[in-house]
Structures are given as C-alpha cells and as structure tokens.
C-alpha cells in the first residue's frame, strides 16, 4: 500500500507542509513562507488522492499479462504461417468486441463482406470457400471499450478519442496528432511508451499503440483500416493507416 510513489510523495509533502506552516506563521512570522507551506499541503493532498485512483495492478503485472496475450497470438500466427497485415473492422461490420481480421490466404476484399463478422476465432468473410480469416481481439479492441462516447469521423474527433485512451487512460503517450483524408490517416504519437519491433506479431497486428489507434480510427470513420506503415524517430511514433473501402 505504501509503495505507491504518489502516496509517498503526497505524505512527504503534506507532513513537511504541516510542520513548516506553524513554524513559518508563528515563529518566523512570514506570510509568504506560510503560503509555501500551504502549497506543500495542497500538492501533497492531491498526490495522496491521485495514488488512490491508480489501478491496483502493478505495471509489472500488467506487462506480464500483455506479453502473455501477445505471445499466445504470435504463436498462433506463426503456427498458421500468417504474415498478412490485419484489417481492423468498425463496429458496424462486426458482432461483439473490436476485432482484427487476418486473412488465411490472399487479401481481404472489403466489398465482398456482406454480413457482420461473428465473434469467433476462425471466420468466413466472403462467399468463396477460401474466404477465411482468423479474428483476434487486438489491444485496440479492449481500448475501444474504454471510450465513453463513440468517436466521430473528423480528424479532431479521432484525435480526441485516441488522446483520451492513450494519454489519459493508459498513460502510453504524451500527445497525439491526427491528419485524415479519404484514403489514409496519419497519426503522430509523441513520447510513446511501447515501440514498434520487427517481430511476427507486430508485422501482422502492429504495435499495441498502432493497434489502439487503428481500432479507434476504424470505429470513428466507420470503415475498415489497415496499418500500412509504422515508424519510430526522434521520440515520435509515426503511424499511417490505410482506409479500405
């Protein structure tokens, strides 16, 4: 309970402020110094309250769970020999949680998807016998559930939704910038905590950050998207999404 850094920080500041305030006011007789002590108490109290709103699960445990989930999907992809890039579907094209479709062969022709994709691992997306894909819940899928309001199709609405999830809820980035035209969405993520790695999982589904961005953008635009490119330079992750129609 006490190993939360915000709680330690808060208690420390509050104690320092509470001890220093009467000394500054009654002994030193200085109002500015008393005000500094008051500031310490206020910031300390805020720190203690912030500590209570942090998730109970430790970052190490969260990382362990994330890596376990990714390892399992990566093993499945490698075993099936799937290396095509995943297609992120909007809520209008699927049943249940947000999913990423990885075609078993060839590419997915979006125009041939007639019905909503069911919530299963192996799904049929078209009429032909070979139109099969595996549907996995990528990190973006669960991130999408955390949005209070469904994002709209404009750049600013997508940007707000992505910033809310990545910066506010998950604390994975410092700031987000989204530029959107009909064919593609360019996203610049400043200070990303999880970088792109050239591993099988990331080549198919993208990094967790790109996956979250793709799921939200797809739901906002109302069209499927694919992570076309993902680069990391100068402390920024630059993600390019291809809008499929």
């Amino acid at each position, binding site marked *: 309970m006490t190993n939360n850094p915000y709680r330690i920080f808060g208690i420390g500041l509050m104690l320092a402020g509470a001890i220093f305030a009467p000394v500054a006011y009654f002994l030193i007789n200085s109002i500015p110094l008393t005000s500094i002590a008051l500031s310490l108490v206020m910031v300390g109290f805020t720190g203690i309250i*912030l500590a209570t709103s942090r998730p109970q699960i430790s970052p190490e445990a969260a990382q362990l769970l994330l890596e376990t989930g990714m390892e399992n999907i990566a093993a499945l992809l490698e075993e099936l020999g799937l290396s095509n890039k995943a297609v992120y579907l909007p809520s209008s094209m699927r049943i249940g949680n947000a999913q990423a479709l990885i075609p078993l062969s060839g590419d997915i022709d979006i125009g041939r998807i007639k019905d909503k994709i069911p919530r299963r691992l192996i799904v049929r997306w078209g009429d032909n016998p070979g139109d099969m894909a595996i549907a996995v819940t990528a990190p973006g899928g669960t991130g999408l559930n955390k949005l209070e309001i469904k994002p709209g199709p404009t750049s600013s609405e997508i940007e707000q939704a992505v910033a809310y999830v990545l*910066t506010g809820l998950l604390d994975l980035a410092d700031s987000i910038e989204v530029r959107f035209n009909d064919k593609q969405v360019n996203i610049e993520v400043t200070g990303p905590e999880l970088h792109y790695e050239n591993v099988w999982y990331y080549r198919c589904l993208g990094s967790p950050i790109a996956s979250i961005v793709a799921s939200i953008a797809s739901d906002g635009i109302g069209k499927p998207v694919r992570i076309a490119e993902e680069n990391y330079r100068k402390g920024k992750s630059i993600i390019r999404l291809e809008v499929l129609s």
Partner: protein
Amino acid sequence: MRIYNRYLLFLVLASCLIDVILAFTRQIDIAVYFTVLVIAYLIITVLFVYFSPKTRKALSLVSIVFLAGFMVVVVLKIMEVMRLK
C-alpha cells in the same frame, strides 16, 4: 512523461510562481495566497481533460475540499467587513 507527473509538476510550478509573485507584491494576507492557489488548482485540474473517470472523480473530491476552504475564507472576510460597518 506520465500524465500524473505532468499534472503534479504543473501544480508545483504554479504554486511556486504564485507565491513568488504575491511575495514580490508584498501581499501579507494569507487568505489572498490561499484563494489564488485554489483558483490556480481548479484551472489546472480543468485543463487536464484526459484523466480517466476514476481520477477525475478523485480530483473532484480534492476540489470540493479546497472549495470548502475557499468558502470559509470568503465567509470570514464577509464577517470582517460586517463587523467593521
């Protein structure tokens, strides 16, 4: 930098700045210091719109506590003015 760290850093910097400015203007009323600090706290908290609902709820509790303090200061000032009359 994590959003919580950034938020606390903004609070600390704002508090320091307010204390220094008011000290330079030779302000000697602790109520004025407290009032300005509470207003700065409320503004900074409102500006951090990307906090999770749980955090926002927790911070609104802090805001209520500070606002209660602010109201006490206002009531005391009103009583002081009334007494002078």
